[in-house]
């Protein structure tokens, strides 16, 4: 990247990232963009298929109105390029020469088939870090299996312990398999970058989504490794079996639930309300945090729930936390979007959409870096928005050549 293009306060401001990823890795490149790298999203001519993912702005389906696209492609540039043509492959290789990181999610072997595998790209640019995110990895018996986020999570052991004994296993919200692998994609790439900063050599990185899911299970695998047991589905009850967790983690409030973990009770507060019953007696103090019989458990739960239901979630959340007791509101999605702490942190940011004449609100930075603040959020690009800048401005194609390339469905 040219010296004068490097942004002073951007941690990755000297880097160029080429983003070929679909849903499996689109979040990975968003992280690089947030850290200040120049990220170029490479779309098929006519636009990337992710632009057909809903929801849509005002529920009007349109390739320039996908909220999915807008969320995952903030701060990126867009060029259109057909990698299945000789012209396209040549242009791509020229771009690879200038790139530091390439993120891709194609089926194993696809890029090799186009002459664009790591062997070739690494030869063109030995410093290239090529990050490949796939459902199951580049090798092995499942490498050609069809995957999806739910399939990857299921095979990764992630779904089995989620849900209740009387329900099927349940998946998390918003494709956490893809989010997990994308996050590890960013971490792995930056680990390779550290190595490259010392050796000047890039490398290929193999990221299986299934393995990333299996790695994020805390107790599930350990229960089997150490005990030969399978962690069962028990709602929000936690695999750690911390004292009091036998009482269950969700407590009904007036307007929903609070989560209590571990099962510490605000006995003083309950007493002040005259609703602590016998729970402050010494023998109960013992039992609340140790193994209780089902009858004892029922008693504690009854007293606790009777008291809790006289308050709202917010009252219980704030009141208990002020006493250093770890109770928390089970926020609905709307409540999280209106959370005063998130707003005070400027977690939600305004993103300008000049084409709409509006600014839209979305989540912003995942953390605060004091010397290299998270990139100010700029809207996702239009289809091929940066074709002229890259093809004409940088690669030197003439206007006539660009017209021919477009007519040839190459860009």
């Amino acid at each position, binding site marked *: 990247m040219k010296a004068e293009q490097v942004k002073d306060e951007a941690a990755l401001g000297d880097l160029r990232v080429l983003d070929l990823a679909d849903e499996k890795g689109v979040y990975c490149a968003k992280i690089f963009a947030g850290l200040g790298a120049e990220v170029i999203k490479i779309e098929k001519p006519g636009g990337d298929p992710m632009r057909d993912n809903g929801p849509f702005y005002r529920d009007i389906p349109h390739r320039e109105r996908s909220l999915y696209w807008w969320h995952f492609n903030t701060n990126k540039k867009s060029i259109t390029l057909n990698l299945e043509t000789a012209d396209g492959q040549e242009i791509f290789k020229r771009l690879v020469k200038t790139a530091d990181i390439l993120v891709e999610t194609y089926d194993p072997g696809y890029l090799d088939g186009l002459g664009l595998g790591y062997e070739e790209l690494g030869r063109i640019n030995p410093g290239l870090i090529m990050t490949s995110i796939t459902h199951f990895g580049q090798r092995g018996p499942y490498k050609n299996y069809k995957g999806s986020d739910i399939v990857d999570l299921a095979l990764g052991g992630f779904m089995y312990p989620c849900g209740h004994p009387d329900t099927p296993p349940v998946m998390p919200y918003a494709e956490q398999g893809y989010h997990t692998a994308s996050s590890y994609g960013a971490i792995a790439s930056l680990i390779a970058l550290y190595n490259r900063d010392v050796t000047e050599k890039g490398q290929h990185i193999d990221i299986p989504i299934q393995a990333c899911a299996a790695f994020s299970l805390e*107790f599930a695998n350990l229960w089997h490794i150490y005990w030969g047991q399978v962690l069962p589905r028990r709602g*929000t009850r936690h695999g*750690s079996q911390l004292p009091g967790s036998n009482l269950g983690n969700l407590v009904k409030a007036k307007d929903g639930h609070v989560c209590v973990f571990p099962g510490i009770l605000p006995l003083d507060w309950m007493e002040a309300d005259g609703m602590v019953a016998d729970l402050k007696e010494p023998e109960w103090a013992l039992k609340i945090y140790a193994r209780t019989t089902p009858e004892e458990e029922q008693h504690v739960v009854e007293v606790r729930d009777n008291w809790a239901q006289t308050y709202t979630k917010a009252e219980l959340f704030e009141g208990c936390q002020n006493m250093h007791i770890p109770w928390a509101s089970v926020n609905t999605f709307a409540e999280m979007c209106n959370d005063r702490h998130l707003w005070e942190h400027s977690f939600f940011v305004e993103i300008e959409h000049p084409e709409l004449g509006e600014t839209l609100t979305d989540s912003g930075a995942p953390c605060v870096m004091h010397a290299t603040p998270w990139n100010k959020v700029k809207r996702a690009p239009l289809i091929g928005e940066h074709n002229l800048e890259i093809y004409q401005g940088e690669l030197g194609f003439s206007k006539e050549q660009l017209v021919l390339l477009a007519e040839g469905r190459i860009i």
Partner: protein
Amino acid sequence: MERKYPLEGLRVVDFSWVLAGPGAARMLADHGAEVIKIERPSGDISRDVIPFRNDVRGKNLSGYYNNINRSKYGVTINLADPRGKDLALRLIKRADVVVENFTVGVMKRLGLDYEATKEVKPDIIYVSMSPCGQTGPYKDYISLGPTLQAIAGSTYMMGFPDHEAAGFGWSYSDYSGGWPAQFAILAALHYRRRTGKGQYVDVSQLEANCVLHGAGILDYFVNKREAKPTGNRLPHRGAVPHGAYRCKGDDRWCVISVFDEKEWQSFCMAIGDPAWTKDEKFSTLVSRTQNIDELDRLIEEWTIKRTPEKVMEIMQRAGVAAGVVQNSQDLIKRDPQMKEYQFFKEMEHPEVGRIAYENVPFKLQDTPGEARWPAPLLGQHNEYVFSELLGMSREEIQKLTEDGVIAPQPEVGLVFAGYKEDEALSEKEKKSLMSNE
């Protein structure tokens, strides 16, 4: 000269405890960084967390601690003692990165906050991790995984409509809360190489988790539509069917996901093209969506007769994305991809014996990381760190040990006594659960 690990030469001083911080530091350690874990003399409280092999408890026997803290060096320091604080500063002077997750204000009180460490190491990269960040109305709030997930909205969103929320059965938010720490540290290191400048990084696990809600937040503010739990159905993608289906066997399930017309045709063929698939109730995406409950029931009538492995095999052969809902036994004993990538790596722990660890889930092809050695015994590397690294004399080390500044205290009671029927937590122990002061 060939480097074996990509992060060789990187030194991290890690004050953090339990999962979020140590998990982040683990990734660096597995890739070759020298991670020095500073524990109070009685050890990280996670040394008391299950599982224990044969239920035999001990400070060096926790499977939880062992898995999270492998590949690290462990020392014990009483940070409340001024001499202990000095030791920590001496280590930081030789380090690149500091990680901590104490309650807001604790490091400052100990004289080990960013300002203090910048004095001895101006270009230090200092990462504070906490449930809700260093500032704001919730900054002093206490939260572990399940409560954090509740505040973030993740618990509510995970479950079946009209059923109590399920949430995760573990602290997923401690993993996702650690990812920004990891990429921020690495990005800060790259920036420092270029500019010579270190920095302070403030990681709020709450925000780290709320960035993972996909397009839901935009949908709320733009379309005024509030996301609701949908069980295993995937909204906004035209994916029908998409769910978990009961199979033959005890609590055995397979997930099936169909995203387009071609996959739907393949799915129909795979289940033998039964007449109902041609019925106008199911033959189009629109009609399938309208009759989705009945669709799922009909599919389950087919899957219930077959093992999940058979369902997956039939579907995959037909080109439909389907997968067994594997439990950890399936994953560890049977899964061929886990075997291919040696995901479960066995190592010899001096007290636990030979046991498996969850290996790094991705592979840098030329300089891969891996679980390198078992987690440290309490104070195991005091000798190496104080004598070799800091060059302290035998006499100095002995004095500090005698005075309790660096002596490990394995006999100090296990905090989580709840396992035994006749033991309970004292008030002090309950408070201690929540902080590492």
